[in-house]
């Protein structure tokens, strides 16, 4: 059997189109790659997938029949997180869904179901960490700005939480790694991309802070140190709760 390599655009819709193709042409075994298709000698048999709305909807209808609404949502999130090398597991899960007569969401002895539940756990933890570790800084125009560098693509998952919490202030959360941000203008949120590198040098950003920003940052650092109980020091636990890679954006750890 030869390996069939499918190459798709990386979107969820693209993935579903690929699923359609696999069943339509009875492809097995398959390998899924993200990115643009280039005519390369590296792949002998490369099938480029062009996202097709009609096919997407057919597969989606099929998924909805066999999974609960929450199950479809979980599948979507697992893919959206963009964890490298997990596409084959997401695909494996979808195949298991279609190849079974009953709803397999809780079939944890199946390796794909188990893996998806692990992915979801990682993504949820990352989302929860971002809800905790975002540190807003107040800018001159009253906007509260925060930069993040999450391991997975979780910014879209943060919308609901921050929108319902900070309803009376303008804010922006910017994912430095993936170069896009989420902006709330007191009415609605939108995703935006900015050319930070050239237009705003770091110096300008500091100059753009509101007057009392520095005061409250210092007060917070002071508070953080005051509540520590030295005789109970437990660095291992501390670092397990706040892994070092998050420190650079935490006011109290800078």
């Amino acid at each position, binding site marked *: 059997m030869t390996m069939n390599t499918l190459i798709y655009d990386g979107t969820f819709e693209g993935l579903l189109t690929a699923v359609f193709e696999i069943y339509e042409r009875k492809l097995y075994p398959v390998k899924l790659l993200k990115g643009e298709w280039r005519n390369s000698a590296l792949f002998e048999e490369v099938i480029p997938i062009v996202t097709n709305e009609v096919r997407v909807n057919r597969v989606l209808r099929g998924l909805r029949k066999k999974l609960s609404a929450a199950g479809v949502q979980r599948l979507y999130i697992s893919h959206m997180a963009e964890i490298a090398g997990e596409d084959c597991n997401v695909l494996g899960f979808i195949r298991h869904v279609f190849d079974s007569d009953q709803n*397999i969401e*809780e*079939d*944890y*002895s*199946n*390796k794909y179901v*188990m893996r998806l539940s692990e992915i979801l756990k990682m993504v949820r933890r990352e989302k*929860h960490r971002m*809800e*905790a*570790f*975002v*540190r*807003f*800084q*107040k800018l001159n125009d009253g906007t*509260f700005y*925060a930069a993040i560098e999450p391991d997975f693509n979780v910014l879209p998952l943060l919308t609901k939480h921050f929108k*319902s*919490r*900070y*309803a*009376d*202030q303008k804010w922006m959360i910017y994912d430095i790694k993936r170069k896009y941000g989420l902006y709330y203008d*007191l009415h609605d949120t939108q995703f935006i991309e900015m050319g930070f590198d050239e237009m705003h040098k770091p110096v300008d950003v500091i100059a753009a802070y509101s007057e*009392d920003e520095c*005061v*409250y940052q*210092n*007060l*917070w650092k*002071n*508070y*953080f140190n*005051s*509540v*520590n*109980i*030295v*005789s*109970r*020091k*437990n*660095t*291992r*636990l*501390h670092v*397990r*709760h*706040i892994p070092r890679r998050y420190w650079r954006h*935490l*006011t*109290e750890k800078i």
Partner: protein
Amino acid sequence: MNEDRITEKLNILADAAKYDVSCASSGSERKNKDKGLGNASNGICHSYTEDGRCVSLLKILLTNHCIFDCAYCVSRKNNDIKRAAFTVQEVVDLTINFYRRNYIEGLFLSSGIFKDADYTMERLVHVAKKLRTEHNFNGYIHLKSIPGASVELMREAGLYADRLSVNLEMPTEAGLKLLAPDKNRQDMIDPMHFLNKEIIRNTEEKKLFKNAPMFAPAGQSTQVIVGATSESDQQVLQSANYFYRNFNLKRVYYSGYVPVLADKRLPALNTTVPLVRENRLYQADWLMRFYGFHVNEIVNSQNPLLDLDIDPKLSWAIRNMQAFPIDINKADLQLILRVPGIGLLSAQKIVAARKFSGLGWEQLKKIGVAINRARYFITCKSNEFERRDLTGQNIKQFIMAQSQSKYIQNTQTQLKLF
């Protein structure tokens, strides 16, 4: 704003408040109202101190001036320390500005008793009222209810706060008499009674009228200090159980005594904090609340102390070998929860997954079961299982030989330091 003065106050009053362990910010479903500021929902730990405790709330005292002289407390009257007091507005500003920057979930405000109970409580309530009514703040507010404060003030506190708590301080009345002669246990129990009644009444009211005002939606909690007096774990846990049952408490917190004062009634200043014991108490507390254990199964007159080497569930299991082995593919959830090495989530996953196919060791491991402990107590879809007729003591030795407790390691390094 005088930055230096505020900083100094914050340092003093945060330092004095840090021995209150509660930092919970969950359990309240306060929604963001009219596009105001904040909401309270699942509870988020925004940071962690270097001792590994969660920082979720701005936890401060309004003042550390106090008319009482409790031996275990840093703020006691006769202790020669710096004193400070916030104004109501200062606390409000700090809370709002920390909250807007996503540092905190809300405020946990306690206080030393200055003048009298009512005078103190009135100021605590004033802070909460100002936050709610003037700033439309919907974040989490935890107020300490001051023993002896009037019923009217307590009721008002419940209208603005998400949680109220009275610290019992010592697990038994005798312990309290010894260390806090000015305090009276009944004064602590009265407000708990009152709040419990009000919370129940409010829940009933809510069922009838959707718009009935919330009253302390996150309930009440309390804290006991362990290791300052000689109570056994049995006494501590039985007292906790009593309060869970009779006062519908959401949580009882156990605070390992941190030596802060030299006093002949207290452990010496160089005593280490009983961290392992504290951890075991919390594990036992979880067994009572989530795993269906009765307090007498965990501690009783034959076993008044929790085993420090192993967790209380394992400890119970090896005392009750007649209950095992159980078949993971058939047993009720309640029984699976009693197996050492299987947690709440794993147990639920097992019960869900076994509908599809019988589970073997490999699957159990993937689900998250700690096989090295569970293997002595279960059978599954596999020919391999523990065939030897092991005693509880044997099993304890096997398990301890395989695993290195992080706590034992911890105490060893601490010993080297001294």
